[in-house]
């Protein structure tokens, strides 16, 4: 189990991670979902022993990574956000080097390299220099480096950024397989759909703080709404905002430039009654979109902002 206990990191006045605590249970896929700059990478850097926390501790199977770093790191596989491979070496050279850092050698290393490359569909390109690879292939090789030594804990920091859908599906599939084989996975992302599809439990992080934590069902229930209404109109006008706030059964989550976001409360009259009231209120509405409850709506409910903002 990975235990994060009151972890904190500051860069001068900026608090990047603010006393966060959570546990990642053995064998589960735990998602850390948040926008760019939320503190995901800082958190994962502290968990894998690269960045020293200003406060709190990280326990991996009850061992403190800052007390016995080399022993603990042997159980970790880390896939960083950057593509951390040597482009002037072949895929096999990269993995051979990486495996040797974990004490692998000889036929065992060769076997592991072949196995891992096959798993991500790169076996035929094993002898090619990485600089000839596409972005998706490099990402898959990046993943291989985290899997090669069969770690007990796999930490992935936005491993699908900037790749095509097919490569993304391949990576997600491999992660599911690895987790099914018993590996504990900590997965950071800002893609809601990835978190929804992949993760057993999800922590929503923003401005260095955990805003909510639970399964997808728990989180959507916790948001306390059925649907989210996104209205486009002249909501810079304060009087229109006041009139919108008077509509019963809808809670205003926030206003943007020319937009308003409303949550339909679970114990209220429901969407079919509220929507006509909104449209009849003469608010100058130009467009309406209805969102089923998902992580996006949960995030909006928690922060008043879109995850993409």
């Amino acid at each position, binding site marked *: 189990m990975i235990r994060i206990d009151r972890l904190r990191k500051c860069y001068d006045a900026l608090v990047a991670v603010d006393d966060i605590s959570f546990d990642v249970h053995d064998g589960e896929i735990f998602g850390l979902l948040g926008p760019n700059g939320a503190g995901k990478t800082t958190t994962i*850097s502290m968990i894998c022993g690269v*960045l020293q926390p200003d406060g709190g501790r990280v326990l991996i199977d009850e061992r403190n990574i800052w007390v016995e770093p080399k022993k603990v790191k042997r159980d970790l596989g880390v896939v960083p956000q950057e593509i951390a491979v040597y482009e002037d070496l072949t895929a096999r050279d990269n993995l051979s080097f990486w495996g040797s850092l974990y004490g692998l050698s000889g036929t065992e290393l060769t076997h592991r390299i072949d196995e891992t490359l096959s798993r991500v569909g790169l076996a035929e390109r094993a002898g090619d220099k990485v600089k000839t690879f596409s972005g998706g292939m490099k990402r898959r090789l990046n993943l291989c480096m985290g899997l090669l030594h069969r770690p007990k804990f796999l930490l992935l920091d936005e491993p699908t950024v900037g790749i095509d859908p097919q490569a993304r599906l391949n990576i997600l599939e491999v992660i599911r397989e690895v987790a099914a084989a018993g590996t504990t996975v900590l997965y950071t992302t800002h893609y809601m759909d990835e978190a929804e599809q992949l993760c057993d439990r999800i922590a929503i992080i923003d401005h260095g703080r955990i805003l909510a934590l639970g399964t997808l069902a728990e989180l959507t229930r916790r948001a306390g709404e059925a649907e989210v209404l996104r209205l486009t109109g002249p909501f810079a006008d304060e009087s229109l905002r006041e009139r919108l706030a008077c509509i019963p059964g809808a809670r205003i989550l926030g206003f943007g430039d020319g937009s308003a976001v409303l949550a339909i409360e679970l114990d209220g009259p429901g969407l079919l009654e509220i929507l006509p009231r909104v449209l009849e209120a003469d608010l100058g509405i130009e467009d309406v979109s209805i969102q089923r409850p998902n992580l996006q709506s949960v995030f909006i409910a928690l922060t008043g902002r879109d995850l993409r903002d």
Partner: protein
Amino acid sequence: MAALAILRRDLKRYLRNPLRTALLFSLPLVMAAIFAVVFGGGVDEISIKVLLWDEDESLLSMLAGGAANSGEAGQQLDVVPVGDEGLAMMDRGEASALVHIPSGFTDDFLAGRKTTIDVVKNPAERFLPLIVEEGAGIGGSVLSAASRVFRPELEQIHGLMSAEGFPSDLAVAGLSSGVNSRLNGLQEIIFPPIITLETVTVATEDIGEVEDVGILAIFLPGLAVMGTLFLAQSATRDILRDREAGLLRHLLTAPVSPGDYLLGKCLSVIMVTAAGFALMTVVGAAMGVSWGPPVATAALILATALAASGTLLLIMSLVGSERQGDTLTTIVIIVWSMLGGAFMPLDQMPGFLRPLSTSTLVFWSTDAFNTLILHGGGLADILPNLGVLFAAGAVFLGTGAFVLGRRIRRGAI
């Protein structure tokens, strides 16, 4: 061991990228090769090719040509008799200079008339034509002085040579007597010379006698040390690229400490710099430089490589970006090379600079090479230098590892 894995990876990268590797070694090797070609073999072997276009073809002009080809001048000068094709040869740059003795030169000289020797210089060469010009000028001055001092006798010779048939015994005897009495009259003025030049080589207790090893052996070690530093600069630049590409942070998620990483990088930089230095010694040896006892030379190359690697790794650990690293290391290398004796012999430096020299690793290396090459020293004589170089390399490497680890843990990298 992680450091050895990093060393193996770096060596593999050099092998996988032969062009990049060749470029890495090209700078110091090209520097050494150019220096070796320019100064190779020592000054003694420089030969100046001079074309002699003698239109006068008289006894005097032939004597002048013969003098240039005999004695010490003969070792330095390669005098080639030519006709008017000599000018075309000069146009093609086939000689350093052409000396033209015009027709009637001897006749004019004996008659006391003004005459000229022409020197045509090769503009593509800087120093060698000047030597010929100076030599011809000195010859002209001697002949002019002789013309003034022996004017009556020279006119007598001119008369005898202009006359039909062989001169009479009486005329020859008179001429001989006249020259003899003129020389007797000059004897008190010319002999003995008032000023004589004596050259003495001073041997001090500290330095010992300096062997005559040629200019290449004096300058090549310093140049090789500087080349090694530039090689280390190129090789250590990888650290900054690893940092900026996120490779270093990823590496430290494995069971690898910053110390392991820097040690691995240091080993690979030492391999590269030592190989580069060894290549430069081979170039020097091929051009006649005797580097001294092989074991002492090998130990010195290794110590210099360690010191260069440690220094550059420390700087690369301190700086914030590749640009900063390039600028700072270039300044350090140039200043150290100037102060440390790479550009001028250490004993030629102004006194006030010598204490500064000893603060540079270039000094400790070039000084040791001087001990081996110029003073015939051995391993025991350079042990203090080896100690300083090894200790500095180790201290710099340790400090670099500490600084790098600290900066990474704090999130500054």
